[in-house]
Every structure is written in C-alpha cells, then in structure tokens.
C-alpha cells in the first residue's frame, strides 16, 4: 500500500501542530465556537451526545497492521477500548476528550494516518472497492488514482469551503462495489480502444433526497482526472446553493440545471483547465502505482477444504474470489449478533493485526459494509485463521445475510440521529439467530440509519430501515427493493412506520412473503423485483391490523 513520502509526512505533522494551536486558541476564547466548528470538523471532530467523536481517515479503506495496532492503543488510552468502522471505510472513536485530540493526531501521524477532511463541507475520504487490486472481476486497480485524488484534495485551497460535503468513489471492477451511483462524483475505471480512463457520474447521493447519479461523461482519459474534477468542483463551488443546507449538495444543482446544462458548464470550464499543469504525468502515476504492486504470492493451487459444516458455511459466506489461484480475500465479520455492527475492540484490532502479519502480507482493508478484509490469504491457511477468528468473535458467517446488518451508531451516540439504530439491529439479530434459517433465506442486505442523513445507507438496502421521530417517540420506516451495484436503486417505502418493538416481527413477515413466493434459487431482491411491493405490504400490515384489533378488544373488555 501507499507509503508516505517526505511531503506527506511533513504536511500531516504540520496539520497536528496547526490543530493543536487551534484547540489552544479556542480554549482561550480567541476562536469562537462558530469559528472553531468548521476547523474541528475538517479534522473529523464532532461534539456529540456523550462526548466528542473523532473520525479518522482510512484512505480508500487500506490499512496496515502497524496502523491497526496504533488504533488499538488509541482505543485503550483515549477511548473506552473500542472503535467503530463506518460506511465510508473510516474509523470513529466515540469517547475521546477534545484536549486529547491533538495528542491522538500526533500518534496517528507516527503511523501515516490522520483525520483530515473526514467531516466538514470539503472533499471527503476517497472510497473504493474493498477488493481493489485482487478482485477476480477487476479491470483496473483504482488505488493509485485514488491516492492521487487523495493528495490533490488534501487542503485544496479553492475547495475547502464548499456549499456542502463532497464524496468521491472509484470502482475498477465489472460489478460496482463502491456505491459509485450514489456519490457526488462516481468514477468507473475502464479500457476503451486500448486507453485507460473513467466514466464520470455526478450528482448521486443518499441522505434526505436520495438520487442516483447521472452520466456526466462517458469516457475521460485518466491523465485528465484532476483537471476534470476541478472543473466540476469549481462549477459547484460557485453555483451550488448556500441558502439551505438541505439543498446544498451537488445533486440538487445537477437536478436544478439538468444534466445537459450542468455538463455544458463543466465542459466549458474544463476546456480552460485541460492539459494544464494538473494533468497527471505518467511518471507520477508510476511512482504512486509502484506502491500498489502485487505482494510475493506463493505458487499454490486451490485447496480443497474439509466438509465440516461450520467451516464450510464460513467459507461460503465470508471468502471472495481472488485473482491468484490458491488465494482468497477473507472478510472478518464485525457483525456478531448482539454487538453493534462495525464495532471492534482493541483486542480484536490486535488479533487482526497479528493475523494480517502472519497470513496476509501485513495489510488489511475496511469495507463500506463495516467489516475487515484480509485480502491475500492462502486457502490452505484458512483453517488456522478460522480457529482464531472464531475464538475472538470475528467469524460470524453472515456476510450478505440478513444479520450482516449495515448500521450507523444512531441515537445512542450521534447528535444528528432521530432514533436509536443499534437496539433495532440487535433485536433483529436476536430474532434471526438460527444460522440454518439465515442460510435458507440467503442473500439479503439489511441497512439501518438512525436518521435521514443515511449513514447506514438504508436507501440501498434490500430492506432499509430509517429511524424517524414522531412526537418525541422513535419510529422506523421500512423500505424494500433498494440495491447497490451496477443496478443500484433506491428502495420504496412500504407504508406507515413501526415502533421498535414491532420491528423484528415486521422483518419476519417480510421474510415470510419472500419464502412463500420465491422461485427456486431466487434471492430476495429478485423476488421483490418480480412481485413488487404489494404482497409485502398486505402481509405486513394485515398482521398489524389484527394486533391492533386484539389490543382494542382487550382494552374495551
């Protein structure tokens, strides 16, 4: 993975000093709260319900074992012994003290990490596919260009006070795993007539107004990535709405102008920037790409695992195809039933760091599904890893199953939330704790967000759950039919919201309809697309009416 050069180290160290001084001036009253807020946000620091929250960048989800051990140290020293991986491949700590944050940043800088631009109205962490560089369906490794974008976007003087946050995702595979259709800019790396370039999408996003991105340009040669992004950002910075934070994302501007008029403005701006100094050179591409070379794979053949059922289930769900024979990408699940999805203890961090050193060239990745991936594992090492992972709560074989829930921290931690999300996730996991039943249900993605900001990506869950606040009580709105990938789409609302207590039954009723209606080997989302929302709606609310009737009868009696 990428290793810091002199300038990278220098800038990160200077950032630590700068933030230390900003905290000092805020404490002394030289900076008002309003003046300090954007500064701390651009260092990932939120003031939350119980304590500040610090979000640390994991650029395009790549990390090494040294960095993970440092996060374990931070979790123990400055937090309550755990961290939380987010849906943007970053990690959050929920209990640091503001006064400690400069010290935490100094620790991070020692291992080439930072919290730069993990929040605020600026260009956020660039995300990509967690299987970048090893995926069997990969066309081009997106990581070198993701790193070039990271550097370009870091402290960009023109784009540090945008109308709203700005998220860029890159995918280099046939099947999109980076949710590119729902980013401010989505990039699809591809080859055309022997040339490498991007299809550029713009104006996608989840949140309050979920919109699928639109194609801005069918093909952009890779050398022009930075100048083209600059053109997009400049049009957005000058013309994006600043009067209403809910209408300030680029998706609203693109909708207001229409994609053709927006594209015209971008192309006109790009005409002026094209071939300028920001055009990426072959030498720079090669310098960065050299950091993402293939590790020293051994010549091994595919390994036939034992038929032991638990082990086989784990292999079926939690390993993914690799470019090299005899190797797999292994997902260590942070979705153990009863534990907050994406949460990881300091001990687990250290165990994973050891596993990475021993079995996967010392590197690991974080997925937007909030799991940890060992990307280069020999199949013959899987039994040994399984034993350790199982002993440490990292081997729940529920990747892509109903209980492998994507979930934000919700109202238990987050100040923005309207409702708690973790107890709902936990209640559903408890209700569906039978692995055989989960395997029978098969591929099903359940995503939960505690508010409309959609950090839990509920819009694109096959089943999506959104926490809402009705008269100071928590309710949950359910959507069906969302999906990520090449056919990414937003789910449809099934009907009136449910109480937390009703949620496990509601999910069970949705599953009942699927199991009754599915054709052989048909997964949930395909059944949904075939039969539509009505059968689900009828069954879910029929049950609810009966319960309500019973309740009124009891009360009347």
């Amino acid at each position: 993975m990428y290793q810091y050069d002199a300038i990278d180290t220098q800038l990160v160290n200077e950032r630590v000093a700068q933030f230390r001084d900003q905290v000092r001036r805020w404490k002394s009253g030289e900076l008002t709260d309003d003046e300090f807020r954007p500064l701390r946000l651009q260092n990932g620091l939120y003031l939350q319900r119980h304590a500040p929250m610090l979000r640390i960048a994991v650029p395009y989800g790549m990390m090494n074992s040294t960095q993970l051990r440092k996060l374990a140290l931070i979790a123990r020293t400055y937090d309550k012994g755990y961290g939380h991986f987010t849906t943007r491949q970053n990690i959050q700590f929920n209990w640091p003290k503001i006064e400690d944050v400069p010290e935490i940043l100094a620790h991070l800088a020692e291992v080439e990490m930072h919290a730069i631009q993990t929040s605020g109205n600026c260009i956020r962490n660039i995300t990509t596919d967690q299987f970048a560089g090893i995926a069997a369906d990969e066309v081009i490794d997106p990581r070198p260009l993701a790193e070039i974008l990271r550097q370009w976007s870091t402290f960009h003087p023109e784009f540090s006070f945008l109308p709203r946050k700005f998220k860029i995702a890159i995918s280099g595979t046939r099947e999109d795993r980076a949710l590119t259709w729902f980013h401010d800019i989505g990039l699809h790396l591809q080859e055309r007539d022997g040339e490498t370039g991007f299809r550029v999408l713009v104006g996608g996003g989840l949140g309050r107004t979920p919109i699928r991105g639109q194609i801005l340009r069918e093909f952009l040669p890779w050398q022009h990535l930075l100048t083209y992004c600059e053109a997009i950002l400049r049009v957005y910075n000058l013309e994006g709405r600043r009067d209403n934070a809910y209408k300030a994302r680029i998706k609203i501007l693109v909708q207001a102008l229409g994609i053709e008029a927006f594209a015209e403005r971008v192309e006109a701006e790009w005409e002026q920037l094209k071939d300028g100094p920001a055009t990426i050179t072959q030498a720079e591409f090669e310098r960065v790409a050299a950091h993402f070379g293939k590790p020293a794979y051994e010549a091994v053949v595919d390994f036939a695992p034992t038929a032991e059922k638990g082990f086989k289930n784990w292999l079926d769900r939690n390993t993914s195809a690799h470019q090299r024979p005899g190797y797999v990408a292994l997902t260590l699940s942070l979705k153990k039933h009863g534990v907050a999805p994406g949460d990881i203890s300091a001990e687990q961090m250290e165990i994973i760091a050891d596993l990475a050193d021993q079995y996967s060239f010392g590197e690991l990745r974080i997925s937007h599904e909030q799991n940890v991936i060992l990307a280069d594992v020999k199949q013959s090492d899987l039994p040994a890893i399984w034993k350790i992972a199982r002993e440490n709560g990292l081997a729940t074989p529920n990747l892509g199953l109903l209980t492998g829930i994507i979930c934000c921290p919700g109202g238990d931690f987050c100040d923005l939330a309207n409702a708690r999300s973790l107890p709902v996730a936990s209640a559903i996991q408890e209700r569906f704790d039978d692995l055989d039943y989960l395997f029978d249900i098969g591929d099903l993605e359940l995503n939960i967000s505690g508010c409309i900001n959609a950090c839990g990506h509920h819009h694109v869950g096959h089943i999506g759950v959104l926490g809402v606040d009705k008269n100071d009580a928590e309710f949950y709105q359910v959507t069906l039919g969302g999906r990520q990938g090449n056919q990414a789409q937003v789910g449809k609302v099934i009907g009136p919201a449910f109480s937390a207590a009703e949620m496990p039954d509601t999910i069970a009723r949705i599953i009942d309809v699927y199991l009754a209606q599915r054709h052989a080997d048909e997964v949930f989302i395909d059944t949904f697309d075939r039969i539509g929302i009505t059968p689900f709606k009828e069954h879910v609310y029929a049950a609810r009416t009966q319960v309500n009737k019973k309740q009124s009868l009891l009360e009347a009696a």
Partner: protein
Amino acid sequence: MAQLIKNQTTTVDAWKTLEVGSDETPETLALPPGDIIFPLAVWQARRAEIIAGHKRIGLFLHAGDPLTAIAGDLDYFIVIAIDFPKFVDGRAYSMASLLRQRYHYEGELRAVGDVLHDQLFYMQRVGFDSYALKDGKNAAFAAGSGFTPFSDSYQSASDQPQPHFRRRPA
C-alpha cells in the same frame, strides 16, 4: 475599522470603500474623491465618470458577482476587494482563482468581510495578497503565523502553478 494585512505584516489602509445607502442609487449617488473602492453596480453605472475623475480605482465584488461583467475592465483596477459574507462561504476562493489564473489580473486582490486567521493560508494560495482581518482579531499574530501552517502543497494554485508532482527531483 478592519485591520489590513499585506506582505505578512499589518499596515494602514489608504482605500475607502463606497457604500450605496438605502436611499441612494448607483446612478445618482455622489462619487467621493480619493482612493475609492467602488461597488460593481456603481462601476457599471458610472464607468466613464469614475475613469475621468479617479487615477486610482478599486472595485468591490460580492461573493457570486459574475466575473464576466468586468473581465474586460481589469486593467483599470489597482485593487479588487472580494467579500466573504461568512468565512464558510467559499465562493470567493474560486473567484480569486479565476481572476488570477483565467483573467490574469495582476493588481491587489483583497479579502474583506469575515476574514479570519485560519483561512489566510488558503486565501493566499488562490491569489489574495491583502487581507482586511475581521475586527477584534489579533492581526499581528495572524500576520505572523496565519500564512505558514504548511510549508508546501500538493495542488497547483495561483501562488504555485506547478503541482508538487511536477516539482519532484527527477
């Protein structure tokens, strides 16, 4: 009275900014003598008169004012002031970049309004070279350390046309 920072030191401001009162119009208000920064609307309404009566002319732009309106006039201005209505409103960064890089404006480019210590570095990079720091802030401290939190940058900008990757030793 805002404190002016120029060449990384505090200085006295010789310019006065003309304001159009609520009972005045750009077409009819009196044009004072001396070094005046004129609002865009006044410049557009009274261009010939201003040129005839003033040797040194300044222009005041609001965030969002269209630069195409003055693209042909830039040689007249000794100073262009761009307003930051709030420091989180970043439109002036793009306006400054365009004035320097696209329209090749070479006069003084002044940041006015909600101008604070922690944005000076970015302002300098996009092409501002004078800064009317917000009242009540420590101008000497800002002038001393606000421009140098970072000793280098990755991207090209008005202050450094070459991105870092083109400046690497071969």
